[in-house]
């Protein structure tokens, strides 16, 4: 009975968003022309609710579907439940926010603007679809379902990124898509190789296969990089700062809060983390991952503070935070024994970052459309998640302590020092983001305020609340709070970061460097894109030459055939000759035949 209920819940959680997505075109088809309805209505906002309910209420369980693709196994275990919970909550709040955020487009649709209607319809359709993919990839234990969820999420989200249709949006979308496709390719290669070598169909089997296989570490590299595209590993993060600023803010929130975590889910699912049987090679891979993670954590912070657009700054912050998570995941390979504790910290970190970053992104749009509250209240509320992300309070503090203690215990205090350094960067980034928001917010306040009761501020407040109270409600066991004497060790990076930020702001005012002009968002993307165009230009020459050669060859053959056909006129002439000489030829043939027979006897 319980299993039946569980199955029903799981199906409902996955199918409800799909049904809501399908509702959009069906309604559009049934609607009489000229009559437009509200697309992002209350029902639409309920898309992630069944999933949230499932994550919060359902016991751990498994659903086996033999008829489904290669054989479906969907699971809800200790790690998946918190992931599902915060993902669903984030999606729900962001969706609610979107109702308000996209209200102007709805208004334009009602005013008869066809293209706005089309865009909105697309958004209403793709949003739940992306959500469904995201949910599926979390609950999937079989590889096919996982890949399905991952792919659906990735490709459906493209529509969210390019929603605005501007030139920047197209560039952002292009970067997103190119990197996503590359990532999919790497993932596919890793999955096929690993699954093929052990003949397994589930992620659990995959982890064992990779640990056992002779070239397992290369499979792990492929998977790490493949998922790393989504998770923003240093070098593969290019799409994040390009896609985030152009996407609608709620989409940025889920992109950065939930979807980026899909990469993490992939790592957790496929890498042999915490497997003491994995060889030395994996530890080496872990060290590489660690370095890459720390590099991202610090580099992104350094680059991010030079950005102008608050969402770009936040995107770099995401890269930085994901770098920290990468470093923590790497510990699963370096120190397998400490992994059980670290894994919980990683999930907590993911949830904390997801919701907090969601709150920050929603905060950006709140800064642009300030509600009718006093400015000091607004700005303190806006600063709250920033502080939390920096690790100064709430879930941030809990998270920080959650990974610090096991690291200390396993004797990796060096990593902790580096992570603290990254926290300094995070603080600086947060300061920069708030500063930029402030600057644009002043203008927005002058333009007009919106009611506090609208979906936008409510969603934002909900997100703030959820992020702040995360450790209490996340189904991950009670978090341990740091003892008071540890607080200075945890808080000094925040202080240092604030200090540095103030100093840098003062310095920037004295000597304006205009760094943001020289360091555009997307960093490596631009040189790489330029190199690609250069390469293309260079390759096109030889390719064109090849094509011409082929054309010349074909032309030669055709010409040869034509000439040869022309020669056939001679055959017709020879036919006339044969006709005139038939009698003589008959005699010749008799002679030849006789001579042949005689000669060879």
């Amino acid at each position, binding site marked *: 009975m319980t299993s039946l209920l569980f199955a029903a819940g799981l199906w409902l959680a996955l199918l409800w968003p799909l049904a809501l997505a399908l509702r959009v*075109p069906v309604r559009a088809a049934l609607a009489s022309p000229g009559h437009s309805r509200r697309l992002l209505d209350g029902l639409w906002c309920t898309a992630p609710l069944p999933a949230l309910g499932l994550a919060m209420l359902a016991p751990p369980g498994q659903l086996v*579907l*033999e*008829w*489904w*693709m*290669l*054989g*479906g196994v969907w699971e809800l275990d200790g790690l998946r439940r918190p992931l599902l919970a915060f993902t669903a909550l984030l999606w729900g709040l962001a969706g609610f926010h979107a109702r308000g955020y996209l209200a102007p487009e709805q208004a334009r649709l009602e005013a008869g603007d*066809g*293209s706005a209607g*089309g865009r909105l319809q*697309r958004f209403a359709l793709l949003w739940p679809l992306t959500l469904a993919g995201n949910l599926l990839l979390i609950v999937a234990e079989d590889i*096919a379902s996982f*890949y*399905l969820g991952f*792919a659906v999420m990735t*490709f459906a989200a493209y*529509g969210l990124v*390019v929603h605005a*249709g501007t030139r920047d949006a197209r560039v952002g*979308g292009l970067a997103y*898509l190119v990197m996503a*496709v*590359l990532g*999919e*390719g*790497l993932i*596919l*290669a890793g*999955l*096929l*190789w690993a*699954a*093929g*070598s052990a*003949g397994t169909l589930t992620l659990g089997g995959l982890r064992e296969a990779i640990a056992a296989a002779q*070239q397992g570490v290369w499979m792990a590299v492929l998977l790490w990089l493949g998922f790393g595209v989504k998770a923003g590993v240093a070098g593969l993060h290019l799409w994040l700062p390009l896609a985030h600023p152009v996407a609608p803010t709620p989409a940025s929130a889920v992109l950065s809060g939930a979807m980026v975590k899909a990469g993490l889910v992939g790592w957790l699912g496929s890498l042999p983390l915490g497997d003491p049987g994995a060889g030395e090679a994996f530890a080496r891979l872990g060290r590489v991952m660690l370095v890459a993670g720390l590099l991202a954590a610090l580099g992104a912070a350094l680059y991010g503070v030079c950005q102008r657009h608050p969402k770009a700054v936040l995107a770099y912050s995401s890269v930085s935070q994901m770098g920290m998570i990468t470093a923590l995941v790497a510990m699963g390979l370096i120190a397998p024994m400490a992994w059980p504790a670290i894994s919980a910290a990683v999930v907590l970190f993911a949830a904390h970052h997801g919701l907090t970053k969601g709150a920050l992104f929603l905060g950006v749009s709140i800064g642009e459309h300030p509600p009718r509250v006093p400015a000091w209240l607004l700005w303190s509320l806006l600063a709250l998640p920033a502080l939390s992300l920096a690790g100064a309070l709430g879930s941030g503090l809990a998270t920080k302590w959650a990974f610090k203690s096991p690291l200390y215990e396993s004797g990796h205090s060096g990593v902790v020092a580096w992570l603290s350094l990254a926290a300094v960067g995070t603080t600086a980034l947060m300061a920069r983001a708030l500063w930029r928001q402030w600057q644009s917010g002043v203008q927005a306040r002058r333009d007009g305020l919106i009611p506090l009761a609208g979906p936008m501020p409510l969603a934002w407040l909900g997100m703030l609340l959820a992020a702040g109270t995360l450790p209490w409600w996340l189904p991950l066991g009670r978090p341990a709070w740091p003892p008071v004497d540890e607080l200075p060790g945890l808080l000094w990076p925040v202080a240092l970061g604030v200090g540095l930020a103030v100093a840098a702001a003062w310095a920037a005012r004295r000597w304006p460097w205009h760094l943001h002009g020289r360091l555009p968002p997307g960093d490596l993307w631009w040189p790489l894109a330029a190199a690609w165009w250069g390469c293309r230009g260079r390759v096109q020459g030889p*390719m064109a030459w090849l094509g011409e050669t082929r054309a010349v060859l074909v032309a030669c053959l055709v010409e040869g055939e034509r000439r040869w056909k022309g020669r056939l006129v001679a055959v017709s002439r020879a036919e006339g000759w044969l006709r005139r000489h038939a009698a003589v030829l008959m005699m010749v043939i008799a002679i030849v035949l006789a001579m042949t027979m005689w000669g060879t006897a």
Partner: protein
Amino acid sequence: MTGAWFPLAALGSSLLAAVLIFMLPERAFRARTLLNLGAAVIKLGVVAWMVWGLRQGREYAVEFPVMEGMSFVLRADALGIMFAGLSSLLWLCTTLYAIGYLEDSPNRKRFFGFFSLCVASTLGISLAGNLFTFLIFYELLTLSTYPLVVHRGTPKALAAGAVYLRFTLSAGLVLMIGMVALHGLVGDIRFGEREILAELGAERHPMLVTIFVALILGLGVKAALVPLHGWLPRAMVAPAPVSALLHAVAVVKAGAFGIVRLVHDVYGIELSHQLGLLHGLVAIATVTILYGSLRALAQQELKPLLAFSTVSQVAYIVLGVGLFGPLGTIAALSHLLHQGLMKITLFFCAGNYAEELGIHRIDDLDGAGRRMPLTSLAFTVGALGMVGLPPVVGFFSKWYLGTGAVQAGMPWVIAVLVASSLLNAAYFLPLLHRLWFRPGPDHGRGEWPGERRLGRFETSGWLLWPTLATAAFSVLAGVLAGMPFSPLEWATRVAIEEYLP
């Protein structure tokens, strides 16, 4: 004895339809439609019955001698019936589509007559029980498709027809010579009698390799393996249902199916492996996959793009054949069906765009998703399947190919697969972007090259429903891949039979 009637009935239904269609006058639209659909449905029913019967362990075979030591054999085995099922299902869809597509165009009688003949040959190919019978229908297919290729009668179509014939007839000849040589060596080999060649002494092996090469040359032209693929993109001048038929069901598939038969049922996978033939196949397939994708990337028009995509995709089947191990075999067999479903969808869509909006070039596709959402949805499904994304069936072929490659000890094949996926994405995703995300005439920018309002829906129902049906099939066959009678499950059965004596 009743077992003999079913293969004959399946073959006869479309042959008889062809004859009757030729006898009907050109004007008899309704009778012809009825005949076409009736025959298609009957055939589908007969094949379905045989599928069910095979599962119960029944035998369906008919044979009679043609000359000393050589018989005409029709036999429904698991592999053959799989292909027969595909062709009869897709025939029904294509017939519906063609009825709508050719509305009010001249020479419909000729078209449908040869169309039926073409399908009869495909069915014969699938049910053939030995190489001789296979060859009969293989050549018949060449003949019956020529009038379809040149149907429009334009100079371009006629030139394409000439190229088509040059390739296929020469190939048929080489194939025949190879078959005769094999026949001379060991006599009549029924499909499945792998032990005959396996038991030959090692001194015959060079001869066997030579014959194999000749046979692959003959089959490779229809399967459009590089460098024997030149006819395929040119044959795109044919009407859309013909292209669909050529690419998804009949001609290309006949070649690929022949290769499967050759390796699995004549030489036997063990012997082919032992002779080192599989490596050659994998190499050719690899080259073809990459070359086809690269050429597709450079196309400016929709149908040639799809044609080069076919070149690339069909080589997957050959690749699967070349991977020694049950997974590779499953991949080859299931892709035979999967590619058919996806490619026919894509061609139907291309036809819809051309008919409804006059779109032939890729850059005219901007914003077509708004004007023809269902067609574009079907196109999206097909394109994503080609890229290899679940739940469309293309993913499953790739999955088995990849895992099969590892099993066969050739993990580098995965790199080929991934490269092909990336290339597929590189030419299909921009199309999807154009369809859905670019503003087009329906957003008030420019106008369609030649818009016609063909029906109540976005286009005529005859054109729309088959498209949606095949798209739905290609999704359902993926989602429900674990169900009995799904293509993948059936392919697994065949492969297991092959490897477990």
